[in-house]
Structures are given as C-alpha cells and as structure tokens.
C-alpha cells in the first residue's frame, strides 16, 4: 500500500512538471479510485499536499526566462486564498455523492478551457510562421 502511494505521488509529479498544471486535479480522483478514499477525505488530503511550495523548482525555470508576471501573481494569490476559504465552506455540508458528481463536471469544464486555450495558441503560432515566411 505504501509503495502504491509513493508511486502515485511520483506519477502525479511528472504530470505537474510536464504541464505546469495538475496536482490536485489528478490527485483527487486517483485517491478516490486507487486508495478508495471518500471524496471529502481525498479533497482535504489534496489541499494538505499542495501546502508546501512543490512548484518552486519549476518556477525557477520560468523565472530565468522572464515568464512570470509578479503583480498578476500576487493578485491571484490573494484572490485564491479568500476564494478557497469560501469554497471549502460550500463543499463541506454537501453529501459526498453530489460533491463527486460536481467535481466530475468541473473537470470537464476545465478540460474544455484547456483544450480551447491550446488551440488558440497553436493557431496564433501558425499565423506568425506564415507571416515570417511571407
């Protein structure tokens, strides 16, 4: 069991470094299905794992390339601190079944947003290359 948990962490970590996203979004369903945790328990545990700055190593790479917007980052941190508190107050009184369904719906919306962003980025790059070629 302990080995499974250690390997699960490693797998999720690869995803995090690869995409700059992931973490909880992959951890929560993994803990529900592989470790048979209740939805609330998986979410609480995920929040605990995300507490230390696990993205610090990755951030350094982005920082070197000047790909960090400080001001926007601080704004985001403040908004998320307050928002997360509000969100947890909404989630706890819900029953586990509904919360699980809602989490699934959220994953679908996030997937669509990611896919759309990826497409737009690709189109912009293709256009740039066309203009460069003349």
């Amino acid at each position, binding site marked *: 069991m302990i080995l499974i948990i250690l390997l699960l962490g490693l797998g999720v970590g690869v995803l995090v470094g690869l995409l700059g996203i992931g973490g909880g979004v992959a951890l929560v369903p993994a803990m529900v299905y592989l470790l048979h945790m209740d939805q609330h328990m998986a979410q609480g545990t995920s929040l605990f794992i995300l507490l230390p700055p696990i993205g610090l190593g990755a951030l350094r790479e982005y920082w070197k390339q000047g790909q960090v917007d400080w001001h926007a980052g601080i704004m985001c941190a403040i908004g998320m601190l307050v928002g997360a508190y509000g969100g947890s107050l909404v989630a706890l009184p819900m029953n586990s079944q509904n919360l699980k369904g809602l989490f699934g719906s959220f994953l679908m919306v996030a997937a669509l947003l*990611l896919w759309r962003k990826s497409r737009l980025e690709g189109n912009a790059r293709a256009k740039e290359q066309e203009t460069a070629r003349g």
Partner: protein
Amino acid sequence: MVEGIGRAGGILAVATVCGVASGMFGIGGGVLLVPLLGLLFAFSQHRAQGTSLIALIPPTGILALLVYAKEGFVSWKTGLLLIPGVFLGGILGGMLAERIKPRAMREVFAGILFALGAWQAFSAWWH
C-alpha cells in the same frame, strides 16, 4: 485589454473564482487559472504557467485546509507519503517537457481530464 487598476481588479476577481473551485474541490486552482489568464488577459501559455506557479507558492489553500481538518477530512499519513513523490516527479516531468511537444501533451491531458470528469459525474449520479 483594460490597463492598470481595471486589469488588476479583473485578475483578482478571476482568481477569487478559481479559489472557490480550489476550496470546493481540494485542488490547487492552477488548472483553471492557467487557461483563464490566457483566454481573458491575453497571457502567453508560458507566462500564464509561470504566473500560476508563483501564485501557488504561498499556501493559498491553508484556510480551506483548516476547514477540512476541523471536520476530520484529512489523511495526514497518506499526504506525507505523497509529497516526496510529487516533488521528485515534478523535476522529472520538467526534464521530460523539454523533449516532448508541450502543446500535444496539453491536448492529450485535456482529453484525459474530460474522460475522467465524465466518468466521475456518471458514476456519482447515474449508477
């Protein structure tokens, strides 16, 4: 694009929405923040990811964690066992990212995420 205070206020509002999702679903929020920074504020993918990472350095989920912990919904032991793996895996993933086309990876990831979400919603509501 709105400049100055308007833009900062907009980002703050969007981040608060991401935070609500973070507290409700026990996630970091980056998965929502990265595409929204790009779609609404014209951040490039790299800049959106870098900015999301810096926003996640302070423990933004701490208030939410305390609420979950008070209700006994935290498995501390499992969490402690997962942290080293996630950290080491992150370094591994960062090295892999240099060899693989990130855009294709993102689309594959979005596909997996969608399937996972559909499965969870289905198993919760129509079983």
